[in-house]
């Protein structure tokens, strides 16, 4: 049976007992009240007798009529009280006493009135006064006998009344006792029942739960009879089932975690785990290797300790924007090792979410990209720069020219391109070899770079040909032409300066030679992307040939006519 049903039954039984016992209790209370009222009536009857006894004695002392009258009135009161008592006192014993009492009182009336009558004879008598006096005494004796009987009856009535009060009180106490006893019994039975339930049902449940809690996950609590405890036992068993499954899964996860942990520990990439405030909680050995910071030094610190200040602020803005929105971030950072050395990092940072989807940590997997960056730079150098002079090659020149054309259009200003060809480079090459020629080319490149601004470009176009690209000239053609002309002149002058070149001839000591090598320069202006790169280069090249033809070491501007 369900415990709730059992408790309902016990409650119902208790209420029924209370309902059944309540009338008994009420009856006992009423009986007690009645007994008290009866006793009060018996007391009144006794008091009435005492009152009449006082009048009787007064009469014997003084023989005055007032006492007789009061004695008679007292007798009338006695009749009223006895009538009331006969109606109200129910006991057989009381009725018998009342009968005896009434009879004796009536007899006493006769005796009293004979005394009264004899008093008149006594007072009037002459010769036989002694006889009346003797009669008076005899009657008084009889009166006393009646009085004794009456007193005895009233006292017995009182005692009976007191006994009834006592009995009723005892019954009342018994009823209260039963009442309290029934309640106590119900309480005790309930307690015993609950005790038994605890002993028989809860304790095995508790012991079973304890076993499970202590790790005996294969233990299952016997459910027993179908009640709430059985429900609870089944719940415990279900929990144990789930716990067993979860622990299995957890063990697998732990093993996996262990593997992953080893993988992380052994990872060639640095791994960093931070909390949401970016305090470092974990770094793997590779991190220490990459940065120079040991785990002891770095734990609890902020990764910004690694910042070099050379990574753009935008990168960090994007990084945090992605992470705070729960997205991964991938990018490169230029950081600083503990030694101060800069290094490139390719970082993948991911927010770690708990089971409810709340971000709790960040994990960063960082690879040192310095080497890769260096290789990329080398490739870039090879692709866009001349290996000898380190000047942009023709491909990069095209890029720069694109940029310059775009800027020209954007800003409505002229740009200028100078095509430069060294006038007497070939003889040097032929005479002293390519190595000396190369030295001249390197020197010429340096001189060219000294003539232009940082924003301008000097490129090696091929052989002994160079191109100078000048940005942001004036928007007016004449002004721009003047500006370009000035630069061209400066270039021409610088390049025409003699070159001091070291010469090494086999079998002789190294010497230096002075060598003059002028340049012919063709210049063309362009604006607003009106022309193509090829046109611009072609025009400059054509202008340069004009300069060659004009006697070398000359500057010629491309004109629309030329």
């Amino acid at each position, binding site marked *: 049976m369900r415990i709730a049903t059992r408790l309902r039954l016990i409650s119902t039984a208790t209420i029924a007992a209370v309902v059944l016992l309540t009338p008994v209790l009420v009856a006992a209370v009423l009986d007690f009240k009645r007994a008290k009222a009866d006793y009060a009536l018996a007391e009144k009857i006794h008091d009435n007798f005492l009152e009449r006894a006082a009048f009787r004695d007064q009469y014997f002392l003084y023989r005055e009529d007032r006492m007789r009258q009061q004695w008679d009135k007292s007798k009338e009161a006695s009749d009223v009280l006895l009538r009331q008592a006969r109606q109200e006192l129910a006991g057989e014993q009381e009725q018998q006493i009342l009968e005896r009492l009434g009879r004796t009182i009536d007899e006493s009336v006769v005796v009293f009135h004979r005394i009264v009558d004899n008093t008149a*004879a006594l007072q009037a008598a002459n010769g036989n006064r002694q006889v009346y006096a003797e009669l008076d005494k005899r009657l008084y004796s009889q009166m*006393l006998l009646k009085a004794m009987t009456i007193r005895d009856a009233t006292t017995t009535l009182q005692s009976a009344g007191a006994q009834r009060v006592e009995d009723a009180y005892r019954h009342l106490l018994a009823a209260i006792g039963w009442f309290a006893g029934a309640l106590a019994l119900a309480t005790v039975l309930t307690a015993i029942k609950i005790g038994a339930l605890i002993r028989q049902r809860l304790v095995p449940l508790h012991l079973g739960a304890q076993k499970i809690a202590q790790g005996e996950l294969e233990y299952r609590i016997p459910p027993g009879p179908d009640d709430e405890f059985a429900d609870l036992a089944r719940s415990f068993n279900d929990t144990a089932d789930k716990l067993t499954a979860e622990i299995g899964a957890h063990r697998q996860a732990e093993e996996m975690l262990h593997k992953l942990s080893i993988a992380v520990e052994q990872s060639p990439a640095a791994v960093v785990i931070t909390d949401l405030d970016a305090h470092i909680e974990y770094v793997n050995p590779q991190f220490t290797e990459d940065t120079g910071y040991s785990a002891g030094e770095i734990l609890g610190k902020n990764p910004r300790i690694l910042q070099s200040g050379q990574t753009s602020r935008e990168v960090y803005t994007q990084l945090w924007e992605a992470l705070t929105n729960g997205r991964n971030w991938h990018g490169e950072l230029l950081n600083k090792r503990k030694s101060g050395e800069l290094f490139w990092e390719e970082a993948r940072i991911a927010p770690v979410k708990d089971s409810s989807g709340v971000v709790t940590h960040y994990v960063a997997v960082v690879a040192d990209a310095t080497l890769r960056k260096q290789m990329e730079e080398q490739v870039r150098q090879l692709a866009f720069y001349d290996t000898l002079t380190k000047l942009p090659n023709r491909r990069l020149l095209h890029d720069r020219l694109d940029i310059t054309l775009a800027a020209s259009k954007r800003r409505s200003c002229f740009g200028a391109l100078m095509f430069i060809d060294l006038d007497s480079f070939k003889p040097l090459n032929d005479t002293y070899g390519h190595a000396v020629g190369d030295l001249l080319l390197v020197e010429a490149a340096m001189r060219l770079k000294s003539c232009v601004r940082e924003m301008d470009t000097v490129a090696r176009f091929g052989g002994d040909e160079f191109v100078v690209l000048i940005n942001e000239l004036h928007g007016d053609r004449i002004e721009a032409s003047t500006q370009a002309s000035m630069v061209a002149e400066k270039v021409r002058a610088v390049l025409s300066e003699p070159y001091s070149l070291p010469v090494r001839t086999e079998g002789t000591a190294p010497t230096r030679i002075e060598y003059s090598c002028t340049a012919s320069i063709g210049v063309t202006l362009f604006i607003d992307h009106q022309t193509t790169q090829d046109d611009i280069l072609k025009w400059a090249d054509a202008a340069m040939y004009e300069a060659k033809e004009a006697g070398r070491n000359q500057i010629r501007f491309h004109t629309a006519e030329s």
Partner: protein
Amino acid sequence: MLMACLGCSPAPDQPVPAAARQKVAVAYTFQPQSTLAHVAVAKGYFAAEGLDIQPSLHTYGKAALQALLDKQADFATVAETPVMFNVLKGEKIFVLANIEASSMNNAIVARKDAGIAVAADLKGKRIGFTPGTTSDFFLDSLLTANGLTRQDIRAVALKPEEMQGAILARQVDAVSTWNYPLTEIRRQLGSNAAVFFDREIYTETFNIAARQEFVRDNPETAKRFLRALIQAEDFVARNPDEAQRIVATATKVDLGLVREVWNAFNYHVVLDHTLLITLEDETRWAMKNKLTEQTVMPNYLNYIYVDSLKAIKPEAIRMGR
């Protein structure tokens, strides 16, 4: 007949074997006042209390008391008047209990043809009485109540059993007597009888008396004796018809006569003031009329022994409340 009745009486609960019973001699009377004693004997209540009753039946209590004083009996049933006279004579007796009280047992029965119609007519008449008994005291009380004295009449001393013959033979004009003679004489005189009761002037008591020495030596016997009488009292109250038959059988008195006088008596085993007051009234009367040489009122409390009754039925003690 009485013995036969004893023999056929129903056995009480757990009767004491006859051999183990204590022999107790009891002197009691044929009178109605001894009803409880007759019933206790007949119902075996004494036997049940371990008492082997040796009965001696007497015409009246004075004779029964004399048997006690003569040590022919251990207990006697007797009215208060013989007790009073014997106490005044210095006899060491105890009254253990009152077993009967009545205001209607004594009367003067007179012959109308002797010129007696009302009590006042008794003046100058020959009135028979039994000296030293309630008959003696009642005669005096009735005369007093009617303004007469002993000197106004001619008192004739008679034994109770002589009363009936004396009045029928006109040797006396009236007799002061008790039942059964009272009723029998009245019946025999028929319409010629004038009967003078006075229930307001005298209450007779009938009592259990014993020698003081016996009571002191046999306190348990006294209790057992009273206990048997209390059982008889209960029986009489609940079974009056059977009690009447028992009395009629035991006393060889006509059952009709027994029934006729039955209501004049109250059978209760008690000790109350009635006995004490009546004893003192009668003592004053006796001393006044020179019926005794004593002139000092004895303390009757020394002759009323309450301990036995108190031990077995305390509520029956109605003295000194």
